[in-house]
């Protein structure tokens, strides 16, 4: 079965510091990859997505992610974190075959220190 792993449950960074959130998936089929953000009390908002082509993708709010097939990873990055980035971040995948529904990781909660 497909699975998505976000190894960091909780990360704390200082405002202005760089950020990297990790995501690994485990299956061999071509994945479609997504990062979503959930602010407290809100639904999920798409940050960025990867389907094919350039493995470095840009998203909203200054986020980017890099797809590395050899490592089965799709890590999210931001060069300088703002206090408003404090939220929970979810990596998700859809396989090229099978059902259309997203499979989510368990999430990483980001705390930003002043």
């Amino acid at each position, binding site marked *: 079965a497909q699975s*998505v792993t*976000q190894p960091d*449950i909780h990360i704390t960074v200082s405002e202005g510091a760089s950020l990297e959130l990790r995501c690994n998936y485990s299956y061999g089929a071509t994945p*479609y990859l*997504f990062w*979503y953000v959930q602010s407290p009390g*809100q*639904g*999920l*908002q*798409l940050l960025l*997505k990867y*389907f094919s082509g350039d493995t470095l993708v840009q998203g909203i709010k200054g986020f980017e992610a890099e797809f590395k097939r050899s490592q089965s990873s799709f890590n999210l990055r931001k060069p300088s974190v703002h206090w408003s980035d404090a939220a929970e971040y*979810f990596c*998700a995948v*859809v*396989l*090229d075959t099978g*059902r*259309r*529904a*997203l*499979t*989510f*990781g*368990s*999430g990483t909660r980001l705390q930003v220190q002043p």
Partner: protein
Amino acid sequence: DVKVTQSSRYLVKRTGEKVFLECVQDMDHENMFWYRQDPGLGLRLIYFSYDVKMKEKGDIPEGYSVSREKKERFSLILESASTNQTSMYLCASSQGGRNTEAFFGQGTRLTVV
């Protein structure tokens, strides 16, 4: 903008009650989904639908059923609510195939007492 609307933000129900969670999307999307969100577990897929009157089980369908009588509406039904169904429920919709993003509602926080 795509809008996915869930009928309630908060619900409190008693054990054994039949519970309906309603979801409506306004963008003529083919696909609709119900997820359950619990701390440390992320979002887990309960049921999904690719078309009117069709449904497919997700990863945790036990204790739930769904109904899709119209394209824009997807209902989640808890036939007999139990305390272990206390959770946040998120509805989502997407257009067409697998390479399209899903749009989410604000969620319904259900408490079963």
